[in-house]
């Protein structure tokens, strides 16, 4: 039973969160998880679920989690790409649910990409071996 306009407004806000991403993608941050066979085999599913969980926990707006097919670098799977409007995309590799928490906290929330998880960092590491 809604007894006041304030209560109606509260319901509206809550329900809108749920529907937010039915708007077409465009503005906002897009987290794209590679979910081809290679990605799934490497464990992309728990990674994606962790993203959804973290975003919900932190009540983040304008962030959508999308899947994509094979990104092409199967040996670095699970791969996650983060697209922010007007910024260069950041590609995270060899992701795990544990790494997700850090990415969400530092990159998505505070805008600072976690370089030690990115593809450039991994490649350098391999080159220096």
């Amino acid at each position, binding site marked *: 039973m809604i007894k006041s306009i304030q209560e109606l407004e509260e319901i*509206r806000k809550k329900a809108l969160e749920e529907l937010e*991403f*039915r708007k077409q993608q465009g503005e906002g941050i897009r987290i794209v998880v590679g*979910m081809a066979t290679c990605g*799934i085999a490497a464990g992309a599913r728990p990674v994606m*679920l962790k993203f959804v969980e973290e975003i919900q926990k932190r009540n983040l707006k304008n962030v959508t989690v999308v899947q994509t*097919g094979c990104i092409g670098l199967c040996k670095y799977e699970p791969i996650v790409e983060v697209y922010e409007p007007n910024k260069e995309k950041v590609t995270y590799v060899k992701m795990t649910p544990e790494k997700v928490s850090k990415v969400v906290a530092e990159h998505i929330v505070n805008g600072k990409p976690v370089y030690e998880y990115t593809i450039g960092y991994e490649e350098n590491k391999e080159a220096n071996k």
Partner: protein
Amino acid sequence: MPLYRAHVLVCGGTGCTSGGSDKIYDAFLKEIENFNLKDEVQVIRTGCFGLCAEGPIVIVYPEGAFYSKVADSDVKEIVEEHLLKGRIVKRLLYKESLEEGQIKSLNEVKFYKKQMRIALRNCGVINPENIEEYIAYDGYKALAKVLTEMTPEQVIDWVKRSGLRGRGGGGFPTGLKWEFAAKAPGDVKYVVCNADEGDPGAYMDRSILEGDPHSVIEAMAIAGYAIGSKQGYVYVRAEYPLAVKRLEIAINQAREYGLLGKNILGTGFEFDIEIRLGAGAFVCGEETALMTSIEGHRGEPRPRPPFPAVKGLWGKPTLLNNVETYANIPVIILKGPEWFASIGTEKSKGTKVFALVGKVNNTGLIEVPMGTTVREIVEDIGGGIPGGKKFKAVQTGGPSGGCIPASLMDTPIDFDSLTALGTMMGSGGMIVMDEDTCMVDIAKFFLEFTVDESCGKCPPCRIGTRRMLEILQKITSGNGTEEDLEKLEELAYSIKDSALCGLGQTAPNPVLSTLRYFRDEYEAHVKEKRCPAGACKALLRIVIDKDLCKGCGICAKNCPANAITGQIKKPFEIDQEKCIKCGVCIEKCPFKAISKKA
């Protein structure tokens, strides 16, 4: 509410449902369970998306992938490929929605580009069976605003200033109607919603009730506040089971949430709504007949005045609007009358919903600003005429309306320009016709409908329309005379002048309007015993071209009437006496040697 990473919207409009969308919905639930995606993906049944020709339709968010003509056997692939692995199933995408491998936003698709959705704003967007989704999109906010910030007079003033006119067909200024009902003396007043849509080919109101029932409920409550009424009725035909079901669910939810009933939103305002089922008689869409039917009597019209605003249901002042009219109200309250008045033409404000049907590629439900031309609707939104045929006319306004011929295709559509053309807006059925349509036959079709649906109370309608139909039957069977044409016109005008209610008075319109623009077709039927469109069977001859016929005999084998005879390797012939003009031989002939001759 749990957060899902993907939403699957399955169209639950009547068009898609008859195409099997309920099976698709079930299949999604099953497959999502099978693939263990239950906690990640939500499946929702929505109202009509509009593009009925491409149904059943499924949209998957957040990508916004628009899948068309989906079968339940496709569901497993969508779930496995798209939802599990993130690979969009391109083969099922609506072909126009894909550009350079990228999915276009729905609004960029040609079908939607020229549209502006006000009354249909939530159709295909929200789950109509979930009040919270309606609230999320500003639902009941207009009611809250009205109850706390506005006086009833202000509400009426806003509706007046918006320029909204009745979308049921007549185009009477809505605000004025509200004012009459508000000023009528009496303590007990009623708010009624006319959802008795009966025009052949029209389904706007049904789609709004199915896709967004709360917008109608909210608007009726606003109307109740404005005119001082506590009770509303929705009169809906029983042949619309899905609309009735969704409306019932919506009314119950609104009561549960305290948005209907006593002390709404703690303001002391009281309003409730009941559903009244009609048995689907066309005349019950006429306002006086509709009220008689709600009162429990046989639905027959009575003369006006007194108008319902003064003496309506059970003799009390009653405000009666149609579904689409109501659906506009909450938006007008939220965005203001000036915003609404800025859309459309000088005397017809806002948008109009049309059911675009007939010989057009994208049949479906569309909403365009008033003043959009027939050409824009047929060519841009409708995607043109199938099979490379030529556009001939559109019929608007159902049995009360008339035709707009191809030569007037650039007419901007609004209430007054249509009336000037001898047709009308009506509730918004728009039937597109190509060169193969015989206009005499169309007039006959609508007259058959009126004859069937006449309530029989007044002789002009009961007897007059039947006489007109008989003349039309005579003409299409090749026995008409020039005298018949005169008689037809005379009858038409006298019925127009003497019938009791609006339905009888407008029943001759399809005949008058086709006579106006396509008189030559009538004359060809009468004088030359010829149907130029090749549609009237009695006037048609099916002939074999002797030069093209190779004498294979396939036609004779397939003829169900044994009307074709001949010797192999010599040209065959059709006995016109025996021929039933079914056209099977035309389809079967491998050499295209058989054709219809008008």
